[in-house]
């Protein structure tokens, strides 16, 4: 297969020293194997996330995303924008849909963009990395590169919300999406039955309403254990952080003994593709994934 080129939108959390920096490490390794070339959108900005709405309102939110569209389209013409963060993908896709749907919003957006010397001529497509894997490669192709199958390892595929709703991956069911389980199995691992697969981790409320969010996170982790999982896997940086880093607090509050690693699909894929723990960013886990590190090359 020829090299596939995308305009890359890494998002704030993927930057060096930020909360999902190990996600980016593993994505870069995974893309090397798959011959995916990611070119960062020059000077990209934050999407506003799913919490900015309260202060931002409507147009400023869309304009913020539109700046990235204009930068991508000007500098990387013809390339789809690919986001690795679920919220970046959702925020950008939502803004694209709204702007395209309303001539007034489009006109206002262009007027605001002009202030930054930008304009949108062609609206780029906006895709999540999981979509790229499923649609542009497919499970058979993804499986061809496996050198170190994750045999005997049990994962709970935690899809969460924002790669699944409201847009989702084409052909998937909102209540029981299968793409993540299929990625786990394509890599040679076992996807355990998991009844909290699409439960919300609390999102930004993990900051503002920690008790409420942690009650949800508790259910998400408990169900992973119930299914027999040794690790949780997710496509979303906020899901990853929320489910991983508050386990100590939850243990104190609920008298549980949770200590389960929470990984990204790209980390599994990097290890299965023969990469090292470092290539997969496993040194970035707060709860170390010892069993995955043990089989890494």
């Amino acid at each position, binding site marked *: 297969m020829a090299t596939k080129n995308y305009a890359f939108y890494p998002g704030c959390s993927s930057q060096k020293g930020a909360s999902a920096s190990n996600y980016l490490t593993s994505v870069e390794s995974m893309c090397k194997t798959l011959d995916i070339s990611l070119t960062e959108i020059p000077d990209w900005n934050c999407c506003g996330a799913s919490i900015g709405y309260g*202060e931002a309102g409507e147009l400023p939110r869309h304009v913020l995303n539109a700046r990235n569209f204009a930068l991508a389209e000007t500098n990387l013409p013809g390339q789809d924008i690919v986001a690795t963060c679920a919220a970046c993908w959702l925020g950008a896709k939502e803004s694209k849909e709204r702007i395209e749907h309303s001539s007034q919003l489009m006109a206002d957006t262009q007027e605001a963009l002009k202030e*930054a010397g930008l304009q949108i001529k062609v609206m780029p497509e906006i895709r999540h990395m999981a979509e790229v894997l499923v649609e542009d490669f497919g499970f058979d192709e993804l499986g061809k590169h496996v050198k170190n199958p994750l045999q005997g390892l049990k994962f709970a595929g935690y899809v969460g919300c924002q790669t699944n*709703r409201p847009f989702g991956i084409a052909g998937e069911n909102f209540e029981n999406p299968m793409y993540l389980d299929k990625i786990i199995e394509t890599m040679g691992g076992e996807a355990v039955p998991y009844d909290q697969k699409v439960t919300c981790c609390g999102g930004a409320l993990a900051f503002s309403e920690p008790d409420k969010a942690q009650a949800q996170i508790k259910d998400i982790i408990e169900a992973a254990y119930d299914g027999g999982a040794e690790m949780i896997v997710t496509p979303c940086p906020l899901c990853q952080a929320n489910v991983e880093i508050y386990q100590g607090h939850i243990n104190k509050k609920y008298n549980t003994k949770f200590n389960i690693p929470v990984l990204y699909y790209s980390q599994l894929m990097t290890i299965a593709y023969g990469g090292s723990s470092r290539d997969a960013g496993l040194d970035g886990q707060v709860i170390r994934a010892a069993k995955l590190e043990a089989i890494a090359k």
Partner: protein
Amino acid sequence: MSANQQMAAKYKNSFLKEVEDQVEMGEWVKMCMQCGVCSGSCPTNFHPGWEHPPQEIFMMIRAGKRDEVLTSPSMWMCTSCYNCIVRCPRKLPITHIMHGLANYAHRLGVAPKDQPTRAFSKLFWNNAIATGRVNELKLSIGMYFKNAEGKLDIVGGIKKGMAMQGVALGLLKAKRLNPFELFGGHTCKDQKGIAAMLKKAKELEDQRKPLSQSGASR
């Protein structure tokens, strides 16, 4: 009378109309058939503090209960999980209506002052647009050193900071929290352009929304 008060007086007996004109996706409120699937699908519905589930909010809007709706903390309970949207049999964009109502109440200045998600939203947006990219360290510190009303709270901050110590140390060790972000961190280059663009966007939004006669934004 302030501009907001004049606005409110005009809409006095027509809150539904006001919501349709002023709230993002507000024109959908009349489509709700009160089935309650949204409420049963909401992950925060089962926690205390959830006064009115979405279908109740929609009925209250139609019944003209302006103050009860706009001062309610309910909309701020939204985690943006989008479960209500995908399950609504009438395809109402419920998540966006909740966000829109929250934003409208915030703009009018009538949203509950001690609502922590309101404070966090403000903090997040201002953090993001300050340089174009989120500074996670300043965001967390900002969150912990402010009380629920968004005012500086040193004692509370130290308490919360202590409680979060384990989490922070874990992230530091994993190189997912950078103490030097406090002195700069990741930024966009064209901050001037971003500021000018957002200023214009805000101007246009203010023109289209609070000061418009009706529905001019759509």
